[in-house]
C-alpha cells in the first residue's frame, strides 16, 4: 500500500495534535527534569572541590600538593563561539523545515546540511575543550567540579550527537527525495528535539561558564 494511504488510515486524534509530535513534547518535558537534576548537582558542588584545577581563576587553591594561585580552565571565547554556532543551527533547521513544507528541495537540503555541520562543529568544539582540560590536569575524577561538569556537558554533548545522527538520517531521506511536503513532520520532530537541545545549552552556558 502507498504511504499516503497509510497516513489517511490514522483516524483524527482526540485533540487534533499529531500523536508523534505530542510524544516528542512529552519526552522533552521528561528530559527537562533530567537536565535540571544534572544542573542542580553542578550548582550544589560549586566551590566544594577540594583540589584544583577549578573553572575560574582562584587566588587560593590546592594544586600539585600545595596551596597556590591557579588559573581557571574555562576558555570563554571558544565556548561562546560554539554556543553561537549551536544557536544558529536552530535557525538553520527552521529554514530547512520551511523548505521541506513548501517542497523546496534545494532550500531543504542546503539548510539541513548547514544544521548538521553546525551540530558537528559544536561536538568538535566540545571534544577539543575536553581534550584541552585533560591537558590542564582536569580529569573526570579530579574533583567534584570536574565530575559534575563532565557529566552534565557530556550528557548534553551526547544529546547533540544523537540529534546530529537523527538530522543526518532525515538529510539522507531528503537527498533521496523521500521527504515530500506531506512528510515534513519527519523533519519537524527532529527539529523540535534539536531546539530543545539548544535551549538546554542556553541554560548551561550562563550557569556553568559565566556565573563565577
Amino acid at each position, binding site marked *: 500500500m502507498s504511504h499516503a494511504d497509510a497516513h489517511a488510515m490514522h483516524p483524527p486524534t482526540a*485533540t487534533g495534535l499529531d*500523536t508523534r509530535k505530542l*510524544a516528542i513534547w*512529552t519526552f522533552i518535558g*521528561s*528530559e527537562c*527534569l*533530567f537536565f535540571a537534576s*544534572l544542573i542542580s548537582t553542578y550548582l550544589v558542588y560549586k566551590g566544594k572541590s577540594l583540589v584544583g584545577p577549578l573553572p575560574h581563576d582562584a587566588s587560593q587553591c590546592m594544586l600539585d600538593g600545595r596551596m597556590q594561585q591557579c588559573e581557571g580552565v574555562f576558555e570563554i571565547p571558544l565556548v561562546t563561539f560554539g554556543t553561537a554556532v549551536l544557536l544558529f543551527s536552530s535557525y538553520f533547521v527552521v529554514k530547512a523545515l520551511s523548505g521541506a513544507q513548501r517542497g523546496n528541495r534545494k532550500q531543504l537540503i542546503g539548510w539541513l546540511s548547514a544544521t548538521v555541520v553546525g551540530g558537528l562543529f559544536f561536538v568538535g568544539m566540545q571534544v577539543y575543550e575536553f581534550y584541552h582540560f585533560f591537558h590542564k590536569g582536569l580529569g573526570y575524577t579530579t574533583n*567534584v567540579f570536574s565530575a559534575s561538569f563532565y557529566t552534565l556537558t557530556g550528557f548534553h554533548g551526547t544529546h547533540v550527537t544523537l540529534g546530529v545522527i537523527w538530522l543526518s538520517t532525515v538529510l539522507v531521506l531528503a537527498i533521496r527525495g523521500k521527504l515530500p511536503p506531506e512528510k515534513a513532520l519527519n523533519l519537524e520532530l527532529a527539529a523540535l528535539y534539536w531546539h530543545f537541545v539548544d535551549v538546554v545549552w542556553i541554560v548551561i552556558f550562563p550557569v556553568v561558564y559565566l556565573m563565577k
Partner: protein
Amino acid sequence: MATSAREHAHAPAPSKTGLWSWLTTVDHKRIGILYGASAFIFFLIGGLEALLIRWQLRIPENNFLSAEAYNQLFTMHGTTMVFLAVMPLSAMLFNYLIPLMIGARDVAFPRLNAFSYWVFILGGLFMNASFLFNAAPDAGWFGYANLTSKQYSPGMNVDFWVIGLQILGVASLAAAVNFFVTIINLRAPGMKLMRMPMFVWMSMITQVLLLLAFPVITVALVFLLTDRMFGTGFYIPAQGGDPILWQHLFWIFGHPEVYILILPPFGIVSEILPVFSRKPLFGYAAMVFSGAFIAFLGFGVWSHHMFSTGLGPIADSVFSLTTMLIAIPTGVKIFNWIGTLWGGSLQMKTPLYYALGFIALFVIGGLSGVMHASPPADLQQTDTYFVVAHFHYVLFGGAIFAMVGGAFYWWPKMFGYMLREGLGKVQFWIMFIAMNLTFFPMHYAGLHGMPRRTYTYVAGLGLDWLNLVETIGSLGLAVAFTLFMVNIFVSFRGRKANPAPADPWNGATLEWSIPSPPQEFNFPEIPTVEGRDPLWTAKRKHGGPLPEPKRVDGSNIHLPNPSYWPLVTAIGMSIMLIGFMAGGLPVNLIGVAILFFGAFRWAFEPTG
C-alpha cells in the same frame, strides 16, 4: 462497516499463536498479559524472599540466615516488590485497560509498548541473575550513599542494583510517554477528559509522575555508577562529595514513586466500588482533582524521608506541613469512596470484598503515615518496624488488595472465564486476617525500638511473641496466594462450564461492551461516547441488559504489523548498560551497535 476500518492489502496474516507470535506481538492486550504474568512471578519471588526474612525473625538470635544473606533478601524483597511486582502489575492494567476504556484499537505506539515490556523483563531478569553469582544487591532498596560506595560495597551486588534499575527506568519512561500520549490523543469521539473512567484518570496522572520522577533517579544512579566504575566522588566526602545528595535525588524520585505505586490502585477501587454499589462514583470531579493535587504535592514532600539527617528546623517544618497537607486530598478520596457505597445497593461479589478491604487497610496505613509527618515523632519511628508497618499497610493493604480485587474484576474480560467466587472470598478472609497478623504487631515492635534491616534481635526485649505472630501471619499470606493460584487453575480447568459473558458485573465502562476476551481489534466500530458511565447509559436507553455482542470478522480492520525490532533494540540497550559492569567498553559498544541497528530497522520498517 465503520469508516476507520479500511481495506487492508497485506500478505497472509502472520500466525497468531506460538512463541514467535508472543515475541513479536504489538497487541496491547497480549503485552498486558505478558506484563501481568511476569509481574506475578516476580511477586511470588519477592514473597518468597519475605517468607525467608520472616522465618529468620520468628525467634530471637536465629541463625537460619546469615547477616549477608538477610541483607540481600530484604534489599531484593523491596526492590522486587516496588519495581518488578507492583509497578508492572499496574503496567499490565494500563496496557490491557486504557485502550479498551477510552475506545481505542491500541496504544499510540504499539512497538514502543513492546519495547517497554522487553526492556522491563530483561531488567528484571538481570537484577535477579545476581542470585546466581551469590551477589544480590544488599544495600537496601533505597541504596543509601555511602553504603553503596566501592569502599563499603566492593562486590558486584550494588552494580547489579544500579544497572538493573537503570534498565528498568528506561522501560518505565518509554511506557509513560506512550500511555500519556495514548490517553490524550486516542480517546474515542465524545470521550472528553472529564468523562474518562477514573482508572484512566489515575493512570494518566501516574504517567506524569513517572515522566517527572524517573529522570531524577536516572541521574542519581548515573552518579553512583560513575562513582563505582570510574572513581568520581559525587557521594564520597573524602573527594568533596556529599552522601546527602543521594538522599535528596533518591527521595525526589522516591516520594512520587509512592504515588506511582498507589494511584493506579486508587483507580481500580474507583472502578469497582460504583459497579458493585450500582451507582455512579460519588464526587467524580473531586476525585480527579484530589488525585492531581496529591501528585502535585508529592513533589514537595521528599525530605520527610530525611528528617533524621538534620536539615534544620525550617526545612523540617516546611516538609512536615506539606506532608500533612497531602492527608487532605487523600481524605477527600476516602470520603468519596464511602459516599459511593452510601445508599448503594451493594452486590457482595469478590471484587467488592477486596475494594472494601483496601479502604479499611489503606486508612490505617494513611493514619500512621501522617504520624511520621511530624519530625519529633518521626525521629522516634524512623528506621524502626513502625515504618515497615506503615508502608505495608499502604502497599500490601492498599496496592495489593486493590490489585487482587482488580484481578477478580477484570479476569473474565481478559481470559473469557470467571474465577470462583467462593474461593475468592475465602482467600479474602485469609488474606485480610493474615495481613493484619503480619503487619499490625510491627507497629508495637517498632515503637519498642526494633530496628529495620537488622537480621536478628536479642531475646527478652518484649519482641519475641510479636515477631512470632508476624511470622505466623506471613504464612497465612502464603496460603492466601496459594489459594489464588488454585483458583486460577480450577477456574481454568472448568472454563467451558463457566464462560464469561461480555458484561458479567453490569459494568459501566466501555471494556464491558465487547466480547470476553476482546477480539484483536477491540472494537469493530469505534464507539461514540455521550457521558460518563457510557454502558449504563446504553443499558438505560435499551431498557435492560444489552444483547450479548457477537464476535465479528475483523479481517478488514487495519492493525499494526508484528515486529521483532523492539526486542532487538531492548536487547541492545540492556547489553549497552550491562557493559558498565562486565566486559567494559567493547560490550558497551556492541550494545550501542545492536541498539542503533534495531532502532533504525524499527524506524524504517513498514508499519502496515
